[in-house]
């Protein structure tokens, strides 16, 4: 009987697949670039608080990314890291690019008793500051984080 119990336990451990689901993308909102002869920036905190500098005006606020961690071991720490460092955020029509300077998030989160956790990720986005024109439209980039546990 004990043999069967041990076998069943092994099966459960190996089929539990840790997964991360993107509930929300990182959206800096809708902005107006009044001029681009100096660097302006938007800082979006994980709490969704937004601040701007210089010549960016918020038209509509955005929101931080929200990632759901599921099927992880219960009550463990997940260490989050990334390699974002002045990553280009562009659009398909050309013109000036934005620069994603950094991501902002809590580096260590702890899973609950179900092995789940939520992580909000904000960031800092800057204009090029080179007097280039920004066309109306959507600018985006794909960013990657690493989860260690």
């Amino acid at each position, binding site marked *: 009987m*004990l*043999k069967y119990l*041990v076998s069943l*336990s*092994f099966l459960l*451990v190996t089929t539990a697949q*840790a997964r*991360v689901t*993107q509930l929300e*993308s*990182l*959206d*800096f*909102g*809708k*902005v*107006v*670039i*009044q001029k681009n002869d100096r660097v302006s920036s*938007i800082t979006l905190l994980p709490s969704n608080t937004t601040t701007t500098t210089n010549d960016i*005006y*918020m*038209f509509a606020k*955005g929101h931080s*990314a929200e*990632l759901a961690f599921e099927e992880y*071991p219960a009550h463990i720490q997940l260490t989050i890291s990334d390699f974002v460092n002045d990553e280009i*955020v562009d*659009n398909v029509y050309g013109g000036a690019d*934005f620069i*994603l300077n950094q991501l902002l998030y809590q580096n260590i989160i702890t899973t609950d008793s179900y092995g789940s956790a939520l992580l909000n*990720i904000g*960031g800092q*986005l800057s204009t090029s500051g080179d007097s280039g024109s*920004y*066309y*109306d*439209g*959507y*600018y*985006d*980039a*794909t*960013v*990657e*984080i*690493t*989860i*260690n*546990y």
Partner: protein
Amino acid sequence: MNRLISKAALAVSLTVMTSSVLAESQTFQAGVTVQNAFVLTKDDDLDFGIIRATADLAGSALATLVLSANPATSPSTTTTDATLAEIAVLTAGTPASFTISGVSPFATLTITDPTETDISPDAAPSGTAGFTLSAPTYYVLTGATPNSAATTTIQVDSTGEATFNVGATLTTSAIATTADYIDGTYSGTFTLQLDY
């Protein structure tokens, strides 16, 4: 008993394996939308009304009609020499009106004044006197500062909208002409520019 210990050892071994350090990566999108364009709509043309006008054919004496952007202000006239050039208002006109929309909340837009514009007869013989339009004025009806005069800027409200009037001064011909004003309509086109 030995078999039981063996099974227990297997279970411990499995536990150690699942608690080793693992790393995974996850990608997601980061984006921003730029909307620099906004909408400026002309609701009504600038109409100086119906007037009686006399031009100095030499173009030296001038008469003016000031149509205020403030709808509560009556039009006013002046002349440098009433015997030579004069404007009298028969039916008062109305200022031009514009609507701004699609602007970020409480943004301030800068006004670029229209250049001096010729107001010419729509149908008249060559040499007939015309007018010039100049000195535009602005009056904000709705926006961040409703019911107030504006000079160089207009600030929109929390919805990113504003409405405003444009008045101007109509002046009799300052150049020599061969014929005084004839009855009919006189018109011209001017460009108003607003920028963030």
